[in-house]
């Protein structure tokens, strides 16, 4: 769940090993967050995946 109108946080994930990416993101307030992962594949194809992170305190 997420409330519209709130400030989104952005972060970039960098490749640390083959197929493994790491990035830092700040949960700036308590509540239920949604992480949207935007991926650009080598061929230019774009993907979006959604992860729910509920109950952040």
């Amino acid at each position, binding site marked *: *769940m*997420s*409330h*519209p109108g*709130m400030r*989104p946080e952005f972060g970039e994930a960098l490749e640390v090993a083959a197929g493994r990416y790491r990035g830092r993101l700040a949960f*700036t307030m308590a509540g239920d967050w949604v992480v949207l992962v935007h991926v650009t594949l080598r061929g230019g194809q774009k993907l979006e995946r*959604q992860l729910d992170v509920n109950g952040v305190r």
Partner: protein
Amino acid sequence: MSAESPAFDLLKIPLIGPFFSWRHARTFLQIPMLIVGIAMIAHGLFGPALAPKNLATTVSWVHFRGALVLVLLCAGNLFCLACPFMLVRQWARRLFRPRFTWPRKLRNKWLSAGLFALILFVYELFDLWSSPWWTAWLIVAYFATILLIDGMFKHAVFCKFVCPIGQFNFVASTLSPLEVKVRDQGVCVPCQTKDCIRGRRDPGGLVTIQRGCELALFQPSKVGNMDCTFCLECIQACPHDNVGILSRPPASELMTDPRRSGIGFFSRRTDIAGLALVFTFGALLNAFGMVSPVYALESWLGRVMHVSHEAPVLGLIFVFSLIVEPVLMLGLAAWLTRVWAGSRRAPVPLIVRYAYGLVPLGFGMWLAHYSFHFLTGMLTLIPVTQNAVASLGRPLLGEPLWTLTGIPTRFVQPLELGFLILGLTGSLLVTHRLAQDEAEAGAHPVRAFIPWAAVCLALWAAAVWLILQPMEMRATFMG
């Protein structure tokens, strides 16, 4: 114009005045609102499921609510004027002529006050802010209900007795600086036709060529904004061009108790007082649903009640906040007004009379809450719209600028405090004035004022505590 006429009349302002005097001004405002409404329904049903990316949730819960309270504060009930539901209802009434009259037992605000509380409850229970799907269906249900009720019943029954948004606007607009009002009472005295309420028919008397007030407000004896949708029909109907949109001191209508056209005396309208209490205590409750302590309270209540579903827990919180708490607080104040200040009024009439004094405080809380979401998220409309257009096939408005949000929270919070202080000041002024009138009932005015001022201060302290709480916000994380 008579000497008592206010100096400011919106209809006398160049460009704005001729626009609002224009016969099709309302339709002109309603059409874009209807288009936005249809876009919200379509995007809510078929667009992204994530609320911050959807027009239905973003426009409904961020922009509409925020713009609504700010316009009510700065002008008047202009959102009822531009209500798109009424446009659809007008079109429908060309096909179906209503035949029935609204039942006498329902000609009060109890049903609409209950629906107002129900919407607040449903909003919390089903997390409507996070569901484009259910938000879209809520809008569809609104359209359907209007068509059903106003398709069956004559006059503006839905606006006057059912619409929860309308009731919110009616109560809040008692604090607005503008009012649709007669310019010169002397002009109305010899008027025989009373077109402002009756409307006008063709010479054969069969076809209405100009509606009068469908909410039964007769302009010469209309007082304040309660029940006025700013439809401007009376302005069009008056053959003497004697109805304007005039300035007045906000909240002044809460301080006096004249007989009001279409309403009667505020002091005898228990239902309107009940609506005012739902408005005021509902403001605190709605904000309470957004902060961290509500989750701790719900969790504790769930353990005590041995239930795992949210509905009974939330129901208990609502019953306490909207019924038990007001009855206890106002009951105690009324008892002190009788025992300590010496008022001869019975407790219920005292509560009814002073309930109106809490409206400014409630409006201050609604302003603080909704303006927070509006101001901190106002620019999100841009990327959400860009995204909606792009989803049609081509990004005609460019790629969504998701970094656009609004004014930083640290700048908005002082404004929230300002709204609460404004609300407290208004409530203290109104209750002070009501306490002065208490002398007629044999009471000591200062002693009569103190208990109600204490109620105002207690509610204000709760409101300040609420906006200083860390928000248990539902946000978006994008990478």
